[in-house]
């Protein structure tokens, strides 16, 4: 049945037997490749069948948009670009446990719209990922924003449903915490569809509240860090804390939030809201003692006008402990470079990054730290991860290696 000379047209016929024609869209083809189609499975069964077909045909299945060099790298292998938009059902909204189970193709904005109708929200930021599907957000581990209380993005996931490259299906049971072996879901979170397709996820949800971020200006990094540390020690425990200095090309945004040359460091603190956590006044009392309160309070996501868009953020991000953050602040003194970003701050540290295109001695100091904290490869896990790919996807079907 499997012939190396099968024509793209017969592949298309075969695909049409699995999914209705309107769910298949041929992609730009060249004479000598194996054909490429965007396929929109509407059910888990269709998704499984597509993968089984791909195994039979040694096709490549992608969970991302086509890229120009895909055809060059894959030669005559047919290519499938999966789109999730027909798999976007909310399967269960469990308000007793505070969880929602969704198919992975739902976009963040759609999910939040549906939850909002019931006065809930997720632990994910809403705006930066408006059009992203929950599947791609989870697969790319876009864990930039979240602070001590919500935990990291991975913590928002109670369980995943996954289709393996050979078409077999697995889904864990949702329990608050388990001790039944390793947390296998973690293999799929962040690995960009290398080992399986996330078709479903159960996520934690929270009562929605108007989200207000409080913002303060600090003269230097040391003062900003001390205020944050003090707040954490007092148990103020806000939902998120973030420090940043606007990128050099964001003068307008900088002025808008009220930062000045004397107070260039922005401290954003998001309290839990009226239903939980410490009263907003406690938090404000603390931060406004040593920092300057910026008025009026701005909505969360204010940093969008201050830094390059998250999707354009290509610079490395490293986890930095408090000890090193404080050292860095000392080294920088009052010369804090623009485009600096410390996110997900907790009692133990935060994630640090510096926007591209920032020069000067202070930027060099930050870059040196980022460089020092970046793991130097090759690392043992890279070998193990390649091994895992070979075990779980021996034919290199799903998001093939090297593409």
């Amino acid at each position: 049945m499997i012939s190396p000379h099968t024509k793209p047209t017969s592949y298309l016929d075969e695909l049409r037997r699995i999914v209705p024609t309107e769910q298949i869209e041929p992609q730009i083809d060249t004479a000598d490749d194996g054909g490429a189609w965007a396929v929109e499975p509407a059910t888990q069964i269709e998704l499984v069948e597509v993968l089984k077909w791909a195994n039979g045909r040694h096709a490549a299945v992608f969970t991302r948009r086509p890229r120009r060099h895909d055809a060059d790298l894959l030669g005559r292998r047919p290519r499938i670009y999966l789109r999730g938009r027909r798999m976007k059902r909310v399967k269960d909204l469990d308000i007793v446990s505070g969880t929602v189970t969704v198919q992975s193709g739902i976009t963040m904005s759609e999910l939040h719209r549906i939850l909002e109708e019931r006065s809930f929200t997720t632990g994910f930021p809403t705006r930066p990922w408006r059009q992203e599907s929950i599947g791609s957000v989870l697969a790319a581990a876009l864990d930039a924003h979240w602070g001590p209380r919500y935990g990291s993005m991975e913590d928002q996931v109670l369980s995943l449903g996954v289709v393996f490259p050979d078409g077999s299906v697995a889904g864990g049971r949702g329990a608050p915490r388990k001790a039944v072996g390793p947390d296998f879901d973690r293999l799929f979170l962040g690995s960009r569809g290398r080992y399986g397709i996330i078709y479903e996820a159960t996520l934690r949800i929270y009562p929605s509240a108007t989200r207000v971020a409080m913002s303060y200006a600090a003269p230097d990094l040391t003062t900003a860090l001390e205020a944050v540390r003090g707040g954490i020690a007092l148990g103020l425990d806000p939902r998120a804390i973030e420090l940043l200095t606007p990128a050099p090309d964001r003068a307008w945004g900088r002025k808008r939030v009220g930062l000045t040359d004397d107070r260039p460091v922005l401290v954003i603190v998001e309290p839990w809201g009226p239903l939980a956590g410490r009263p907003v006044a406690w938090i404000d009392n603390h931060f406004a003692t040593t920092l300057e309160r910026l008025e009026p309070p701005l909505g969360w996501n204010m940093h969008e006008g201050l830094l390059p868009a998250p999707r354009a953020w290509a610079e490395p991000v490293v986890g930095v402990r408090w000890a090193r953050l404080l050292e860095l602040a000392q080294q920088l003194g009052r010369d804090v470079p623009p485009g600096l970003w410390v996110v997900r701050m907790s009692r133990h540290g935060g994630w640090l990054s510096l926007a591209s295109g920032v020069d000067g001695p202070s930027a060099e100091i930050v870059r040196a730290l980022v460089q020092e904290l970046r793991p130097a490869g090759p690392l043992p896990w890279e070998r193990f991860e390649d091994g895992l790919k070979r075990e779980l996807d021996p034919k290199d079907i799903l998001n093939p290696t090297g593409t």
Partner: protein
Amino acid sequence: MARLSQAELIAGLSRIVGAEHLSTTRPDRIAYSADFWPKAQIWKQGGDIERYPPDCVVWPADEAEVGKVLRFCHDHLIPIVPYGGGSGVCGGTIPIHGGVVVDVKRLSKVTAIDHASAVVTAEAGINGQHLEDRLNAAGFTLGHFPSSIMCSTLGGWLAARSAGQFSSRYGKIEDMVLSLRVVFPDGTVLDTSERGPGGPDWTQLVCGSEGTLGIITGAELKVNPLPEARRLRAFRFRHLEDGLRGARAVMQAGLRPMVLRLYDPFDSLIALGKDKSPQPSDRQSLLDGIRGLFSGAGATSEREGLLRRRLGPLTHTAKRAALVGALSAPAIVNRLAAAAPSPCLMIVGFEGPADAVHADAWSAGELLAEAGGVDAGAGPGEHWLAHRYDVSFKQSRIYDMGGFVDTMEVAATWDRLEGMYAAVRRAMTPLVFVMAHFSHAYREGCSIYFTFAGFRRDAARSEQLYDRVWRVATDAVVSAGGTVSHHHGVGLSKMNAMTQEHGHMLRVWRALKDVVDPHGVMNPGKLFPEAPHKAAEPDSSTVGVA
């Protein structure tokens, strides 16, 4: 590959760890042939004191020696059983295929305490209480207090995803760990801190692997400042459902009590220490008898009664007779316990900065009162705190008398919790005496900790009953949509439920196993059924082979 003789094994390993850090003596082999798995205690009751002895035990000095031992065993296909405190209750350290037990207790250093970042780096063999003591001296606490803290290790906690009594505030051990170091059988050391954002999270793939992937040699953990204040309160609820509603309200309001425990009616009697409600005297005595077995102080009621009189002389024989009487008719005893008009007790406590504790305790009080809770003061909570390590260690008296006792800690989301509680009780009550409390509460669900006790006239029949109870109970949990273990792990005892629990996800484990342990030497026969590498039956003339 030719199997090694015992002499070759000893010579090879002695070269690595030194002869003084290796043992093949009978006492050591007996000691390392079992952990705290109750089934192994039943074997011992039947006179079988060393069913699965290892070929030898080694105590490596450091990570480098661990690596060499592993590499040696990997090269010679010798099973390796990692060993921490041996306090596991699931048979995880039982060397069912013989081989080498690698006890990591000499890796016991606190390598660093980063005060500014509230992070501790410690070696995996450190005893739990020693680690806590070191942290306390530096002004910190890990916040991890399993009842076994005095006899378990950091590595064992991570390997089995342990939970402490304060997990609602501080999380389970997997929430505390920032990164770990693990040695795989080919000697490769993986430091999971060397990971930026993105890519799979190896820390959480190694956590819970129960020694089947590699040996954890150290970890970086989040620590917390020693609490400035602590406040405990108790509430009584007329109905279990009310208590559960209250617990859920507290957790979903975003409060993080250090402890939130809700006892079912009989467990409440034990936790309260005293039953205030008048009872027909024979019922009272029967319950007192059972209660006496679990609560350290023996039966607390002063009233005389049928079973009380039988327990009266307090001789071993008399107590045994009472136990036989009570546990031979579990259905009746369970019914009596259920009918006892005891309120359900809840203990809730907060610790941390004083203002925060005060505010949180007040908010929790409001929410619990709204759910029907009646304030029972600080007493029961203080009592619990003072005696919280006692109960587990009282279990041996039941074995002494020829019975068995075990615990099953399961978890589910709130929507399934009551259903799971009822289903497990239904499954167990015809077979054993059972009681439960709900602890380790989280925003989206909670764990249930069942304690059960049974009796048969000989060890063989006890073992049959024991297996049957576990089978029906885990089936009930799975059918009710829960997980069969919240914190004790799997070992040998829950292996049979793993296919139902994980389904095809087990492929990931097999892939992991093939990649990091291609010879299948790491703790073979544990955690998941159908190990990819068929472990051979032990051979008496040569050392165990994987």
